[in-house]
């Protein structure tokens, strides 16, 4: 049945330790057993990894560092990596590791020198118009000096003269700014600095100038020469690293893949229970594969393996593998995004498959938009096979959009093309109130499907009466309130107390089924149903926006000339933006209606996903 996850068998596997490695290898190949990790107890410890695990992880770490240094990246297309067999991975990794490490160190050293060169050059550039020899920037006992930019030069000299006679001020312009260098007797250092700060001093570092001679110009030229030779060195090193990458890229990727697998195998016993001579694996296997798996494992273990296969117990937390036919499978994406259903409850994927595209289509609901998005997502699916599931969902949603577009008689927001009025069942832009009722009606149906699914779940887990009280109560409540409203508004000729009877009955049922919590949540079901009004709201905003775009563009077309071009541009950009907004809104809101309004009626979730040993995560 589509609504149930795959049936699982709880398997226990016991064997002598000497066959451990062979069994692990076979398990890894079969990719069929979800191992339940053994937790250490007083009686029985977890297993020890295979002997080669240490060596494997050491080599793997080296390979990964080499890959990151050489910037080896995994390609998107998963072409099989095949390389000639029979070379020593350990030796290769050791040799390559040393070689690449040396290169990377060389590179870092050169990079360090380039950055030192850059900062020294910046200092010299700032001072190059100051007419003093660089040897002046030395350490003095009786003189202090400052170098920096100031905002204005006016009056500095006079103010300095006011505090001391013993100073020397050099000023020059550099790139529109005033650069000054001031030498002053050391006793007046602070006062002089104070004056400069008042003139907006920002310091230029002279740290690196110690010990230099001559004018800044000449040093800059020397630095430039040095830099170009450093850059050449860098190029040489990166070039040779590039060659290494080209040569070893495939080897490295293959080695990483291979080692990861081997390491996973070697470390698998950490998840087993082990005694001195035997190992025990507890796990889960899909029931239909169990027979075959046991046969193959027994062959690998030379018939020395003991198996026990049983039905999952009531309290077991069974890993869940969803089982849905092809077209429904993409929608399992929504369960991954939210949480896995537990083993014993309904798998909502099929229900989501039925209703998600419908709610989405109801909101976007435009024939033209549906066509555009359909083409777009088919193209994107080809382009990005990795996100295939996601695009499949959107393709279904686009088809529903086209369908609803026909119902609403909308084509890019137009309700008539030329003078041909598109036929429609209901017009979204003109029958807003009807649309609101329709949206709420959809809500009633959807919520009640949820309640029926919840009834089934309760039935399975707590029996008929519990299901009747907890889920049936909500349905009776809706009937009660509907009767009350209809008889109050005199739409049906029933005495008002029939509604009251239903209402009170539902209260009692809910009190029994869900306790006080049920009563507190009483208004919740109506806010849930009203929440479906968003089907109208999102749709309406999308239609109105489309209409505004169309109307403004039509006006421009009447204007003629250059305005026609603008009109076309407006149509294009406007509809693209509106489609983008519509997609985002419709997707999120449809998803939300499922997660919040629909799922809360029946879904618990929280199971672990079935993850067989050896399968890629």
């Amino acid at each position, binding site marked *: 049945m589509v609504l149930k996850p795959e049936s699982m068998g709880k398997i226990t596997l016991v064997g002598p330790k000497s066959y451990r490695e062979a069994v692990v290898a076979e398990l890894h190949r079969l990719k069929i057993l979800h191992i339940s990790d053994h937790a250490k107890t007083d009686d029985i410890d977890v297993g020890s990894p295979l002997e080669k695990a240490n060596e494997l992880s050491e080599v793997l770490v080296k390979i990964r560092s080499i890959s990151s240094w050489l910037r080896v990246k995994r390609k998107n297309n998963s072409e099989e990596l095949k390389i000639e067999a029979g070379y020593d991975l350990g030796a290769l990794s050791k040799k390559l590791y040393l070689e690449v490490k040396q290169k990377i160190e060389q590179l870092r050293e050169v990079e360090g020198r380039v950055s030192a060169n850059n900062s020294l050059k910046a200092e010299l550039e700032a001072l190059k118009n100051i007419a003093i020899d660089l040897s002046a920037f030395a350490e003095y006992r009786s003189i202090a000096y400052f170098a920096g930019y100031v905002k204005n030069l006016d009056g500095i000299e006079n103010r300095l003269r006011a505090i001391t006679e013993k100073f020397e001020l050099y000023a020059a312009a550099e790139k529109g700014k005033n650069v000054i260098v001031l030498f002053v007797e050391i006793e007046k250092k602070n006062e002089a600095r104070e004056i400069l700060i008042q003139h907006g001093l920002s310091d230029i570092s002279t740290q690196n100038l110690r010990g230099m001679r001559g004018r800044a110009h000449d040093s800059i030229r020397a630095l430039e020469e040095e830099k170009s030779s450093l850059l050449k060195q860098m190029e040489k090193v990166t070039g040779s690293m590039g060659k290494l990458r080209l040569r070893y890229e495939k080897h490295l990727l293959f080695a990483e893949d291979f080692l990861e697998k081997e390491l996973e195998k070697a470390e698998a016993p950490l998840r087993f229970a082990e005694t001195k001579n035997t190992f025990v694996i507890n796990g889960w296997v899909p029931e239909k594969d169990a027979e075959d798996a046991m046969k193959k494992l027994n062959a690998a273990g030379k018939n020395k393996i003991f198996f026990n296969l049983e039905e999952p117990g009531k309290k077991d937390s069974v890993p869940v593998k969803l089982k849905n036919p092809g077209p429904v499978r993409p929608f399992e994406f929504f369960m991954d*995004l939210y949480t896995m259903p537990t083993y014993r409850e309904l798998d909502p994927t099929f229900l989501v498959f039925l209703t998600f595209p419908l709610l989405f289509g109801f909101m976007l609901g435009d024939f033209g938009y549906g066509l555009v998005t359909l083409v777009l997502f088919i193209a994107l699916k080809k382009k990005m096979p990795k996100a295939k599931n996601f695009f499949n969902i959107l393709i279904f949603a686009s088809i529903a959009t086209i369908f609803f577009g026909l119902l609403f008689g909308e084509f890019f927001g137009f309700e008539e093309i030329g003078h041909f009025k598109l036929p429609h069942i209901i017009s979204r832009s003109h029958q807003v*109130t009807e649309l609101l009722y329709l949206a709420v009606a959809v809500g009633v149906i959807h919520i009640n499907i949820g309640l029926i699914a919840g009834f089934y779940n309760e039935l399975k887990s707590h029996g008929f009466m519990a299901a009747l009280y907890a889920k049936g109560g909500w349905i009776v409540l809706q009937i009660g309130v509907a009767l009350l409203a209809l008889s109050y508004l005199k739409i049906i000729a029933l005495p008002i107390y029939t509604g009251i009877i239903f209402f009170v009955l539902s209260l009692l049922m809910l009190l029994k089924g869900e306790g006080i919590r049920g009563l507190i949540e009483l208004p919740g079901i109506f806010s849930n149903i009203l929440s479906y*009004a968003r089907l109208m709201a999102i749709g309406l905003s999308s239609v109105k926006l489309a209409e505004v775009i169309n109307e403004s563009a039509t006006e421009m077309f009447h204007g003629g000339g250059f305005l026609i071009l603008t009109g076309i541009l407006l149509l294009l950009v406007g509809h693209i933006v509106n489609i983008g907004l519509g997609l985002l809104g419709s997707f*999120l809101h449809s998803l*939300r209606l499922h997660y*919040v309004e629909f799922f809360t009626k029946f879904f618990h979730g929280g199971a672990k996903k079935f993850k067989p040993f050896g399968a890629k995560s």
Partner: protein
Amino acid sequence: MAVDINTGLVALGSAVAIGASAIAAAWAEKSIGVAAIGAMAEKEELFGKGLILTVIPETIVIFGLVIAILILNLSGA
């Protein structure tokens, strides 16, 4: 275009209904969104739950819209 005061008041009433509820929804969503993003930064699997929690207050503005439409309809505008 002259509009009588009653029509104006009806329009204002529905505008307040949707405007105020939109501000309320935004306010509520702000706090939840911040917390949800924080949680997601720590644990990416929480995306689904975070999304749901974040959009829960959105219903408020839908109610506002429903009320606005009801006001417009009941007043016969």
